[in-house]
């Protein structure tokens, strides 16, 4: 025989004064007959209090309750409190229901009679519902603490260094033949990144030396299956796709970086037949090799134009670091040959770091000229521009340096499909939540760091790599298990026709298709329990545990009484 305990919290005066608890209890007890159940209905002064919780435990055990309904406050306040109470008893916490008669009755219905009627309606609905609820049991899953890092640039290196440890191996996969990525090509970093270049070289060294990190170069990812704690990855060699290796890891870090927008493809910047048109990266390389900026002839340029925001319109976003890095180049040229005329054609200066503006000011003091333009075109070494006040100008320079926008690295789209995680419209990876979950992706256990998730500088990249490491360290603790959400969707095989609608609507890729059975299957460890698939299923073949249609319908029935 089902035995439902119904406990109404007086919440001090908050509920007691505004609804007639006695009447509620009386009405509830009358359900014994109609529903053919036993009911224990009692009031209590404050159930969320320590004594209150003890009292509940006592009641559950002594009365051997099979179900529990609590009439009190919002589940957002104390649902977890009472779930914990249940967990300390024999009662499965999913056979309990908290009814919010405070926010929904006592506090908003100012006529006591009506408030009481309403409360009765809610409580009865709760009793009906709870009778339709079923036990759910949390599963514990073993996890693999190891991590696969895709991309051997500084983002990947930093993540690997943070993560590798006695109990956690890191597989660092790089498609080229060496580590370091773009940053290693830089001649120098911003002065605030004083020891930057050396620091990066050191990190590369540490990575290669670290026994916890297995560096796998000239290799890319072929396929990924699994979920947080248990991924299987298939790698293959870049020049020989047939040669594959399999890995099992608990998490994946995407750190595939960026490339510079192909400015030569832009109509407004014809390099013509001039060989004196460079990108900022060309110049960085030049500085790294020759240690100075020179023309093809080897002579020093008498005049240099630096064009900011090249291709920004095309990509539709600001690349954040071009301003400061380009100013840095301008300064280097000026410092090396003070007599060279250095002119920067700028749009809006983007100097979001607290040190950038001073750096810019110093450039001015050095004699670097800044011209704010609305539009600027270049034709070989000829520059045509329109200023803010609509005045036009045309000048010839010995050298023109373009600061191109950052774009996602080649292969980003392919990889995103392999990983099954969405890209932002700009082609960079999309975060799980741009503001409050910025290094995670829609798929639990797959993270993204560095310029793969958007334009940014070295510091930001390192920060994100460390953030990813942090996320992984707290989620995959060596030797510990994880407990996935239990209120997840489940497929009713008898009803599923395999139309795949649910696969299309699931934001988390939590539903896969079983080709043999021809039906959908929920990856319970991935499902977040929103129920979107339930709403989408034309065949009513999916139900969300603890929010099943019969359960909700019981509430409806009482609501319409």
């Amino acid at each position: 025989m089902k035995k439902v305990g119904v406990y109404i919290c007086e919440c001090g005066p908050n509920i007691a004064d505004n609804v007639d608890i006695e009447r509620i209890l009386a009405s509830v007890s009358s359900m014994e007959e109609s529903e053919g159940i036993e009911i224990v209905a009692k009031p209590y002064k404050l159930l969320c209090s320590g004594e209150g919780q003890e009292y509940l435990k006592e009641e559950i055990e002594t009365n051997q309750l099979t179900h529990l309904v609590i009439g009190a406050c919002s589940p957002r306040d104390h649902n977890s409190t009472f779930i914990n109470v249940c967990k300390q008893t024999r009662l499965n916490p999913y056979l309990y229901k908290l009814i919010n008669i405070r926010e929904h009755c006592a506090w908003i219905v100012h006529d006591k009679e009506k408030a009481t009627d309403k409360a009765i309606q809610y409580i009865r609905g709760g009793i009906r519902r709870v009778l339709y609820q079923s036990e759910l049991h949390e599963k514990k899953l073993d996890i693999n603490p190891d991590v696969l890092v895709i991309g051997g640039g500084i983002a990947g290196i930093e993540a690997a260094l943070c993560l590798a440890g006695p109990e956690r191996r890191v597989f660092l996969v790089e498609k080229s033949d060496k580590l370091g990525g773009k940053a290693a090509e830089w001649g120098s970093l911003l002065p605030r990144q004083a020891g930057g270049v050396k620091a990066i070289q050191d990190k590369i060294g540490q990575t290669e030396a670290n026994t916890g990190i297995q560096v796998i170069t000239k290799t890319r990812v072929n396929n990924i299956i699994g979920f947080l704690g248990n991924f299987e990855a298939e790698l293959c060699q870049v020049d020989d796709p047939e040669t594959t290796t399999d890995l099992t890891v608990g998490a994946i870090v995407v750190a595939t970086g960026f490339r510079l927008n192909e400015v030569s493809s832009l109509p407004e910047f014809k390099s013509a037949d001039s060989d004196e048109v460079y990108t900022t990266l060309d110049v960085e390389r030049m500085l790294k090799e020759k240690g100075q900026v020179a023309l093809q002839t080897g002579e020093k340029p008498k005049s240099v134009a630096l064009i900011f925001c090249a291709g920004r319109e095309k990509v539709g976003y600001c690349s954040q670091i071009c301003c400061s890095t380009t100013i840095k180049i301008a300064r280097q040229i000026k410092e090396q040959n003070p007599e060279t005329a250095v002119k920067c054609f700028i749009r809006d200066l983007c100097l979001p770091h607290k040190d950038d503006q001073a750096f810019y000011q110093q450039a001015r003091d050095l004699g670097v000229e800044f011209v704010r333009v609305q539009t600027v075109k270049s034709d070989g070494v000829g520059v045509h521009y329109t200023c803010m006040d609509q005045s036009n100008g045309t000048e010839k320079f010995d050298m023109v340096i373009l600061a191109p926008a950052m774009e996602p690295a080649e292969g980003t789209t392919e990889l995103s499909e392999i990983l099954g995680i969405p890209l932002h419209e700009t082609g960079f990876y999309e975060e799980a939540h741009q503001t409050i979950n910025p290094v995670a992706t829609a798929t639990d256990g797959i993270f993204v760091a560095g310029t793969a998730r958007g334009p940014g500088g070295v510091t930001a990249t390192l920060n994100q790599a460390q953030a990813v490491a942090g996320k992984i360290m707290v989620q995959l603790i060596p030797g510990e298990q994880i407990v996935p959400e239990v209120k997840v969707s489940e497929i009713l095989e008898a009803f599923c026709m395999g139309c795949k609608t649910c696969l299309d609507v699931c934001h988390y890729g939590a539903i896969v298709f079983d080709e043999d059975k021809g039906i959908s299957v929920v990856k319970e460890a991935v499902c977040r329990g929103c129920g979107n698939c339930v709403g989408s299923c034309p065949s009513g073949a999916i139900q969300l545990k603890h929010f099943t249609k019969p359960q909700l319908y019981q509430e409806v029935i009482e609501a319409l009484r």
Partner: protein
Amino acid sequence: MESKNQKQFEPRIVGFLCNWCTYAAADLAGSTKIEIDPALTVIRVMCSSRIDPNLVLTTFFDGADGILIAGCHPGDCHYGKGNYYTRRRYALLKEVIDTLKLDPERLHLSWISAAEGNRYAEVVNAFTDKIKKLGPSPIKSSSLF
């Protein structure tokens, strides 16, 4: 007679609220003690996209005088994109109900964020008033359904 009925008429309205935004707004409204008409009964779901058309129609044909579906503002969904799907499913349902002229006003979709306690009260009260003007759902008095 008509008016007499309306005086005594206490509508039965079902409100399917998403846990993260609108249910939170209801809590906020509660804690600020705004008076809200008791006609609406709140049914909490994790996401408005859980609401399948069938559940809504069943509720409707069981004689609900009004049905409110409310969730996060588009773009705010706790689960990414859920409420965009809610919007499409509602659009379909609405179209059917409109076409059949089954008092479309009885079915209402609203976006109410967790911060909009006052607006929650406004929407619920206003919707209730509207239903009161409409009168009881004819379904309730017909043995055909």
